[in-house]
Each structure stands twice: as C-alpha cells, then as structure tokens.
C-alpha cells in the first residue's frame, strides 16, 4: 500500500516538477509582458535535443548542457526581438498567436537541424534504481526534483535580492510606473525571455534521461505548463510551481488508483473543479471590479 503510494507520488512529483518548471517559465514572461508564451515547451525541447547532439558530437555532458542552455537563451532572445518586440502593444490574443507561430517555427527548424527520432541522455547518476520503503526510484528523479527546487530557489533569490530582479517585478506590477522610474521595460521583457528560455532548457536537460526527447515534445509540455500556470493563479511563481506539482500528482494518482486511460482527463477535471471554486486559481488575487 505505502510502497505503491510512494511510487505514485514520486512519479507524480517527477512529472509535476517539469510541469512546474514550464509553468514557472510561463509566469516569468507573463509577469514581465502579459504574454502567454506558447513556445515555452520548445525551450525544453531545445534543452534536451541540443544536449543530445552536443553529447553525440563528443562534448562532455556538463558542457553539452551548457551549450544547450545558451542555445535556448539565444532562441529566447531571438523570439523576443524578432517576434514579440515588433508586435508590442498588440492584444494578448494576437501575442499568443505570435508565440504559437514561434513554436511552429522553432519546431520546424529543429526537425530540419536535428532529426525526427527520439533521443535520450544518460542518467546523471546512473540508471540503477534506489529502493525506498518498497518504491523503486531512478536516481534521475532526484536530480529532476532537486534541480527543479534549486531553480525555483534561484529564481526567487534573483527576484528578491537583485536589482535586476526587482526591476522585473516592478515592471510586472506596473509597466507604466516602472518606465517612469527609469526602468527599460523592453530590456526587462527581453530578460524575462532569456530567463524563461534558460529555465526551460535546464528542465529539458534534467528530464530527458527519464522522459526521452524529440523535436516535437514541446507542444504537450506547453499545454500542461499553461494549465499548471493557470491553476496556480496566473502570475504567481508559487502558484505555478504548486500548479505543476498538483497536475503531475493528479495524473499519477489517477493512473495508479483510478484509470490509466482517462488519467489526463481526470487531471483536467480536477483542475476545472478547482477553478470553479477558485475562479482566480490557487494563488491568484481576486480582481475587484473597478468602475
């Protein structure tokens, strides 16, 4: 009983940690620019695919990972410069469509640059499972969960302790006021894309040894990450992480205890249920009507 509960929980936390990181990436860009970036999943793909190919080209794994993160950041900045910035002031829906177009383009490029096969990375600490109270867990799961926790911590510290981070927060709170006090909001938005891309790529590197990767893994991750973002309350980093973990756990427990066939549906039903009770998500602030 306990063993399977633990097994399900670890499965849910591992998958959830990735959703959480994708949702965190969403949150950072959303806060800085009100853009829901549906290309966020592509950053995860770039992280995984570039590391795979860099590793195959003979680079050691840490260097390959670094190359992947840098590649994702470059793509992130390019996306911002070439697609988001020129459309500044467009309505949120239009910006979302632009990011969907961006996702298309990135995926299209990846399928030409790399290939259409699935790939894996070796587990950072081998593949031999660890037994905890009857549950078998691959060591990479700890890398994923621990890595996600570290990334969340680093992001929190960045926002709370650095001037740059505070500038991003200020822009998020009030773009106009931030401009007035001399913050270059365009730069801040660019920075948020850079940061989100890096987080996405790191997530991709961490998770590829478990989940495998291919040029088109981004779509589903973006969908799940978006759901987690909204469940968490849209704009709250804590919410994004909580939303991701809850979504992952829901899927794992649904698969384990109810039906594996409809586990995704159950996860979505839980989410819709939560939203009906809390229309602004778990950590969202209610917007009082100002008229």
């Amino acid at each position, binding site marked *: 009983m306990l063993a399977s509960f633990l097994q*399900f929980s670890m499965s849910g936390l591992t998958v959830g940690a990735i959703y959480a990181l994708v949702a965190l990436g969403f949150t950072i860009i959303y806060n800085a620019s009100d853009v829901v970036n549906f290309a966020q999943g592509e950053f995860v793909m770039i992280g995984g695919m570039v590391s795979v190919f860099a590793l195959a080209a003979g680079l050691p794994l840490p260097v390959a990972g670094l190359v992947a993160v840098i590649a994702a950041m470059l793509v992130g900045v390019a996306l911002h410069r070439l697609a988001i910035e020129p459309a500044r002031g467009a309505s949120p829906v239009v910006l979302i469509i632009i990011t969907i177009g961006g996702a298309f383009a990135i995926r299209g490029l990846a399928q030409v640059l790399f290939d259409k096969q*699935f790939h894996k990375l070796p587990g950072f600490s081998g593949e031999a499972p660890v037994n905890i109270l009857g549950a078998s867990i691959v060591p990479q799961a700890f890398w994923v969960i621990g890595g996600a926790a570290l990334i969340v911590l680093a992001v929190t510290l960045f926002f709370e302790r650095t001037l740059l981070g505070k500038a991003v927060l200020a822009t998020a709170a009030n773009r106009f006021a931030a401009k007035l006090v001399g913050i270059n909001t365009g730069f801040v938005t660019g920075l948020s894309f850079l940061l989100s891309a890096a987080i996405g790529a790191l997530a991709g590197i961490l998770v590829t040894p478990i989940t495998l990767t291919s040029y088109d893994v981004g779509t589903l991750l973006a969908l799940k990450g978006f759901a987690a973002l909204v469940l968490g309350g849209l704009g709250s980093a804590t919410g994004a992480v909580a939303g991701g973990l809850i979504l992952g756990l829901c899927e794992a427990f649904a698969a*384990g205890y109810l039906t594996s066939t409809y586990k995704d549906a159950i996860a979505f039903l839980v989410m819709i249920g939560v939203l009906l009770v809390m229309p602004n998500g778990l950590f969202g602030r209610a917007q009082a009507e100002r008229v």
Partner: protein
Amino acid sequence: MMKTFTGIAASLALLGASAANAQDIKIGAVLSVTGPASFLGEPEEKTLKMYVDEINAKGGVKGKKLQLVVYDDGGDANKARTFATRLIEEDKVVAMVGGTTTGTSMAMGPAFDDAQVPFISLAGAVVIVEPVKKYVFKTPHTDRMACEKIFEDMKKRGFTKIGMISGTDGFGKSMRDECVKVNAKFGIEILGEETYGPRDTDMTPQLTNLRAKAGMQAVINPGFGQGPAIVTRNYKQLGINLPLYQSHGVASKQFIELAGEAANGVRLPAAALLVADILPDSDPQKPVALAYKKKFEEATKQPVSTFGGHAYDGLMILVGAIERAGGADSKKIRDEIEKTKGFMGTAGIFNMSATDHMGLELSAFKMLEIKNGNWALAD
C-alpha cells in the same frame, strides 16, 4: 482572395509538373514524415527516395523513369485524405506507396478505391485489408499476426496468465484489440490491463498496478514510438522479473538505444531484416535483407528499421507489377499487384491473392530477443 490562392496553388502544381518528363511513371506517397509517427514516416520517405533514384539510375522501369511525389500528412487523417485526392487528381499518379499509420491509411483508402488507383499501405492494422478493398494493399505484418506470434511463443514457454499494457495511440489500441480477440485461441488469460497515452513519460503507476496482479507469468506491450521504451525502462526500474514482450512497432535499433540496459531480455516479433547479419546463409531472405540494410545504413547513417523495409517491399512489389503490366495503367497494375507471388521482401515472402492483399504468412515473422543490446533470434 480565394481565387488568387487557387491561382497560386494551380501555378505551383503546374510548375512541379512541367519539371518532369511526361513519359515518366508517377508514383505517389503520402507519409507521416512529421508528427507523432514521424519515426516511421521518415525512414519510409528516405527508403522510397533512395530506391527510386537507384531504379532510375539503372534505367528505370521498362525504359521509363519513375517519378516520386511525396506529401507529408503530419499524421493527420484529414490532411492525408486531401493529399490522396491531390495525388490522384493533380499529380495523376499511377499508384501510391504510403500511408504511414492505420488512421491515415483508412482515411485514404476509399479515395484510391473510388479512383481505381492501387494503394499499398505501410501501416500495421489488419482492418486495412480486411475486408478486402479492391485497390488497397499493405506490406507490413498485421497486428493480429504479431499477437499470434507472441502468444505462440508464450505458449511454447508455458505462460498462460499474462498482463498487458498498451498505448492509446492507433497502433497500440488496434493491436491490443486484436490480442484480446485471439488470446483465448492460445489458452492465454489476460489478468490485468493498463494503458498509457502516446506522449506519456512515466508509466510506473500503471506498471506498479500490473505488478500487483498475482500469478502473472509475462507482460505484453502493444505500442509504438517512445512509449514502449519508457515502459521497458520503468519495468526494469520496478524490478519486474517477468518476461516482457514488445511488438513489431518497436522493431528498430532506436528502441534498444532508448531502452538501454533494460531492453535486454525483451522479446518481440519482427521481420528478419533486423537480424540479417546472423541469418543462416541458407535463408533465402538473407541477401535481400542484407542488401537493404547495407544501403539504408550507408545512405542515412541511421540503423536500419523494419519500417523503411516495409516501404522497400511496397515499392518493389509495385515496380514488379508495373513491369508485368507493361505500362502505367493503374487497373492493370492493380491486377498485377494482386498476382504477386513469391516476392522476397524484407518482411518475408509475399504471396498476394484476391482474398489476401498482404500476402505474408505468420512464419515471415521471426521471434527476436534482445541480447547484449543487440537483436538475436529467440529460437
């Protein structure tokens, strides 16, 4: 606006057409080169292009060059149907080798049947050719055969109680249904069943439940793509010691790479192509399989898979039929495809007939076991 678009489309089509010699024999291929089945569609596309080039370099078919028109349906049945219409109406192909997935093949089938253009599908499910449609053929072994081959092997090893975990994609779902139809025939009881989505990344919850079923002797995993690789890894992770059977849907070296260590000991039914190297020299299939393997691996730098092999078989059956038909008449070609006898392909010996539009016997399947990260014959 609309007119401009059609105008553009029309001129583009003309452009494509004018580049080719009117004397050429046009054959079409609608493949899932992108999308969830791209790992099937990509080697299929490469194989077709490779061999069409080779045939043309050697002087073509009956002195005429082959011209291959490929469209990518992205795995979407509706798109596939549009491209099928385009091949028939615009490109006026004499036949088509393609249809990567069962879904796309089923969507395209009626279009070719209506237009009386032969269509050789590369997808697995038995429903494509059963009931027989006059103009629709296929080259891969059916999923029912895969089930039978696996159950035969289980029976031989004395397993009667098994568990099943299948993908909810078309391939997994279809094969699962076939397995559930034929298991009783082999005296095999399915004790527990689980499923996973096409893009799932962790199947430990399902396998944990499956593991808990008492008395199970083996597990079968109908599915294709990366799912089975993850199942295999999770299987090992959870320390399940029962024999694991995969399907012909993972018959590529990539599966072994992805599953790693965990792949060792896994059995699956597949074409002899994968074990071409270790076939006895007396095996009549050996030269064909070896030649294809060598050519594919040299040209693409990727390990050979049976998927590309099915495209090879389809193309060669078609070329043979065109030669026998003595020209580019679709109806005659169809009749000749149906008359294919004793054709040695990568999947086995094809003997088509009016009632069998696939033409492979169960014996064409080999039961393989993965040993030390490589294919080996199980018996």
